[in-house]
């Protein structure tokens, strides 16, 4: 082939369908690359900084001190240990007092990560480091004295940052750091005090694993041995959901891109048949044409991949920027893996999608130059088979799970069937309505070319469906959570309220005009047996809380607000317990089972009466186990309540603590703020990928409109020849776009509601809510978009006569 073929390739590539193909390919690449780059860099960063997050290789935590023999054993095995304790206590200075979360460590702390102190220094006996907030609250500076229990400590400076602060159980109160040796002297820790112990271990992986093997049988309930990989906070859960959503969005972008590519290539191959037939007539052989087409595709592949690569890299930067300080970790440079994945996707997709069009073109009989109806006979199921098979293989490769790939494939098939069927029904209904000649022409066309119509509607509906599904899920994910938190969501928790303090505190709250939650009695206890069998003492279990560790047990007469009964009935008859459904599932509990609990060394038992669903994100006091009052009546309880404290009443907080120094007040406002900030950042990051998916949807529409033009070509030429005016043809096409848009939008709305009803509870564990807005807006959006892209696609635009003359010449 000479230089001409390059001119031909270049000019073909920059025209209509192939330009769309290349853009769609670029979107696919950008979609997969941006998200995998973000995930890759985050994961690598977490691997590197994971141990910095816990400041150690392993930690042993618990509400009781570790056995001295364990620590000696660990040292004998060559492990380094840094013990520590956390508790909350009130600090006094300058006639002021404030609750602080105090942490006591020794000089070895931390093994990894950085303890930032200002001015630089170290933790030594007799001194205390205070967070900036505490310094301000107490009105003290370096060198001032602060009282902690029986001790007077000198302020050494500001505690700027602890590497493992995120894992502290007392994250929410302002923080103070002292030396471990001062704890005993302060006299604060007494029998029954609420202290959490934390031992940091450093050593070789194998030594640590061996030691854990030795230690494990001896661990007491409530003690946990942990690595760096688990965190169960609302923020971590939100980020986890967001990551799943990113993957869903990226997959959606890829699917839409593939759809647009398939439509564009199908359109290209049908249109190109005439030209290939001409080239064959003029003497081009199959091999020559194969080379020509291969170069064309290779060129598109390279250009699309490069464009997509640049776009994807830019978008990943944008996503990271939007996530902002949610990611408070230094990111390593990107690894080559995401680029290889994206390039592999581009190559496989192009190969998969081009098989049928290529065969169709290479087989086109040259006789077509004389007889326009002759074309290569390719069974219509070939296209569907390669598209579905290819999608299956691709999702298998990229998702790495056969089941998921099969599910995706079946889902797409089912969705296609629903979309096609509902579009078809709507079409029949519309046909009954009747109308002017343009209307009848449009519907006549749609009804005659049934298969083409179904494919056309299905493509548009799929694009609308996937795009909308993502917007709906995103809304649920980001706004749904905050929307379910009412403005007066409790932002303060009161715990450790003694029985005799309950009434006065309730009185104080009423006087200040503050609504509090119910006051719940709290008895601490551990679940030790189910139906007489001792429960698994594998306290390392990462299955979530509930068994093993100490639980806050309560009793109440009525089902607490925000709890929902799933099984059984609420009853106050003696000897009963109500169990949170998640815990029941983990422990395999059913109604009628008998639970045994250890309450400060004494055994009590109760029968499971009902299972409850609890909204853990509600910020209200929530409980795994709620007993009938008789079960816990003999045990001394402290009380717990939550209330909403408006900013302007913050003095109430100080006076309450002053008057009731033994109670503990948690300020969860900071946690709520953190949650809101993270959600806002995640939401912004999601917008980036949503823009990508929306663009992919529009590309599908554009490709579909272009392709429809091709299908309609013969008929339009005929109409023109029969003397139909440009206005009539334009009007009939507009009717067609309108019908397609409405029908596709309606079936997309149906599919969105169905899919959301399944996805939200099952995948995101969020309750389903109807989305009435999709019903009017999707059909409208579909119609408007199709009419607009129809205009932009060039069929209705410009002098129709010119366009039709090109069509009449057979090579337009």
């Amino acid at each position, binding site marked *: 082939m000479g230089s001409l073929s390059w001119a031909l390739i270049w000019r073909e590539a920059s025209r209509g369908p192939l330009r769309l193909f290349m853009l769609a390919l670029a979107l696919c690449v950008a979609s997969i690359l941006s998200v995998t780059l973000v995930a890759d860099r985050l994961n690598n960063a977490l691997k590197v900084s994971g141990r910095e997050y816990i400041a150690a290789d392993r930690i042993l935590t618990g509400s009781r001190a570790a056995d001295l023999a364990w620590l000696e054993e660990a040292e004998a095995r060559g492990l380094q240990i840094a013990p520590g304790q956390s508790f909350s206590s009130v600090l006094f200075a300058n006639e002021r007092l404030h609750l602080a979360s105090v942490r006591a460590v020794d000089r070895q702390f931390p093994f990894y990560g950085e303890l930032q102190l200002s001015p630089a220094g170290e933790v030594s006996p007799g001194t205390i480091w205070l967070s900036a907030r505490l310094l301000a609250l107490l009105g003290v500076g370096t060198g001032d004295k602060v009282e902690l229990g029986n001790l007077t400590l000198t302020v050494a400076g500001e505690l700027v940052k602890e590497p493992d602060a995120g894992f502290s159980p007392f994250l929410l109160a302002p923080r103070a750091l002292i030396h471990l040796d001062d704890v005993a002297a302060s006299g604060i820790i007494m029998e029954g005090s609420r202290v959490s112990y934390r031992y940091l271990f450093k050593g070789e992986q194998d030594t640590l694993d061996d030691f854990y093997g030795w230690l494990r049988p001896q661990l007491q309930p409530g003690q946990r041995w942990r690595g760096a990989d688990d965190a169960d906070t609302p923020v971590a859960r939100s980020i986890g959901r967001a990551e799943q959503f990113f993957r869903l969005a990226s997959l959606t972008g890829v699917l839409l891109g593939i759809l647009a590519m398939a439509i564009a290539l199908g359109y290209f191959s049908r249109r190109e048949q005439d030209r290939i037939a001409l080239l064959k007539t*003029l003497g081009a052989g199959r091999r020559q044409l194969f080379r020509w087409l291969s170069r064309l595709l290779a060129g598109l592949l390279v250009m699309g991949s490069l464009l997509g690569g640049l776009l994807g890299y830019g978008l990943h930067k944008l996503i990271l920027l939007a996530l902002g300080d949610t990611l408070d970790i230094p990111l390593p440079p990107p690894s080559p893996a995401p680029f290889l994945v994206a390039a592999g996707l581009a190559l496989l997709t192009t190969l998969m999608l081009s098989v049928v069009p290529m065969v169709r073109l290479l087989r086109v009989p040259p006789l077509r130059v004389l007889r326009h109806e002759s074309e290569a006979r390719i069974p219509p199921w070939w296209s569907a088979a390669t598209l579905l098979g290819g999608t299956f293989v691709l999702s298998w490769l990229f998702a790495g799970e056969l089941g998921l790939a099969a599910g995706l494939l079946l889902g797409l098939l089912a969705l296609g069937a629903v979309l096609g069927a509902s579009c078809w029904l709507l079409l029949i209904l519309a046909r009954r309505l009747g109308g002017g000649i343009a209307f009848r022409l449009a519907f006549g066309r749609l009804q005659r070319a049934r298969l083409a119509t179904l494919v056309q509607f299905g493509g548009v509906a799929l694009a609308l469906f996937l795009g909308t599904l993502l917007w709906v899920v995103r809304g649920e994910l980001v706004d749904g959570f905050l929307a379910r938190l009412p403005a007066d969501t409790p932002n303060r928790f009161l715990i450790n309220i003694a029985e005799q303090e309950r009434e006065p505190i309730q009185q104080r709250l009423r006087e200040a005009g503050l609504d509090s939650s119910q006051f719940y009695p709290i008895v601490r206890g551990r679940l030790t047996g189910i139906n007489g069998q001792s429960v698994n003492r594998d306290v390392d279990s990462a299955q979530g809380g509930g068994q093993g560790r100490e639980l806050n047990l309560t009793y109440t007469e009525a089902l607490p607000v925000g709890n929902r009964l799933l099984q059984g009935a609420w009853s106050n008859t003696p000897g009963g317990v109500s169990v949170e459904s998640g815990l029941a599932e983990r422990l395999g509990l059913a109604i009628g089972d008998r639970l045994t609990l250890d309450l400060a060394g004494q055994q009590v038992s109760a029968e499971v009466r009902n299972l409850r669903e609890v909204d853990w994100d509600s910020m209200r006091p929530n409980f795994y186990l709620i007993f009938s009052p008789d079960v816990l009546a003999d045990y001394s309880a402290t009380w717990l309540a939550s209330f909403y404290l408006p900013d302007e009443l913050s003095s109430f907080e100080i006076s309450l603590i002053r008057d009731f120094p033994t109670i503990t007040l948690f300020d969860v406002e900071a946690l709520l703020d953190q949650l809101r900030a993270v959600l806002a950042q995640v939401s912004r990051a999601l917008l980036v990928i949503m823009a990508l998916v929306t663009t992919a949807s529009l590309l599908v529409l554009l490709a579909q409109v272009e392709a429809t033009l091709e299908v309609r070509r013969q008929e339009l030429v005929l109409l023109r020849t029969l003397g139909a005016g440009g206005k009539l043809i334009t009007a009939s096409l507009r009717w067609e776009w309108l019908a397609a848009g409405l029908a596709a939008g309606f079936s997309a709305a149906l599919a969105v509601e169905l899919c959301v009803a399944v996805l939200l509870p099952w995948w995101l564990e969020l309750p389903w809510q109807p989305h009435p807005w999709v019903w009017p807006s999707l059909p409208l959006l579909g119609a408007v978009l199709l009419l607009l892209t129809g205009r932009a696609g060039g069929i209705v635009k410009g002098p129709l006569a010119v366009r039709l003359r090109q069509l009449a*010449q057979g090579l337009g």
Partner: protein
Amino acid sequence: MALLGASGSGKSTLLGLLAGLDIASEGQIRIGGQELSSLDEEQRAALRSKYIGFVFQSFLLLPTLTALENVMLPADLQGRAGNKKRALLLLEQVGLRDRVHHFPTQLSGGEQQRVAIARAFMTEPELLLADEPTGNLDHHTGQQIIELLFRLNREHGTTLLMVTHDEALASRCQRRLLMNAGHLEEQHG
């Protein structure tokens, strides 16, 4: 030579067979001494490229190539380089010297057919097949095209087989064949 006949009488079928675009179910067609039905598609394409030129009713120019490039295309497919001079000469002969860099959409129907004629002579074919070359043109332009076609045909010494409905046009050919329900008969007078 003119090939006349009513619609559906089999003119286009015969043209397709003669060009090796289709295979005859019976009988033999020889071009350049070679039996067409014994060749595969690849060989038939090579044969067309060597011996046959085409002019179509709907011009069939590639819209992405300029007039000059369209004319050069058949030679390019044969892998013959340095053919630009000949293409320019042909375009000059069809009166389009000043429009060589225009794309088909920028040319009128008559001009497009001239480009198609120039393209047909590009490889110096021995046989030129024309399928109703004036069918898409108005009478006046059609006349000009026919004059051009006949003139070039004479100058290049090519055999022209033209399918047409036009009796007047057919009468200017040396031989006239009438296709009637698949049967050919020679018309005289």
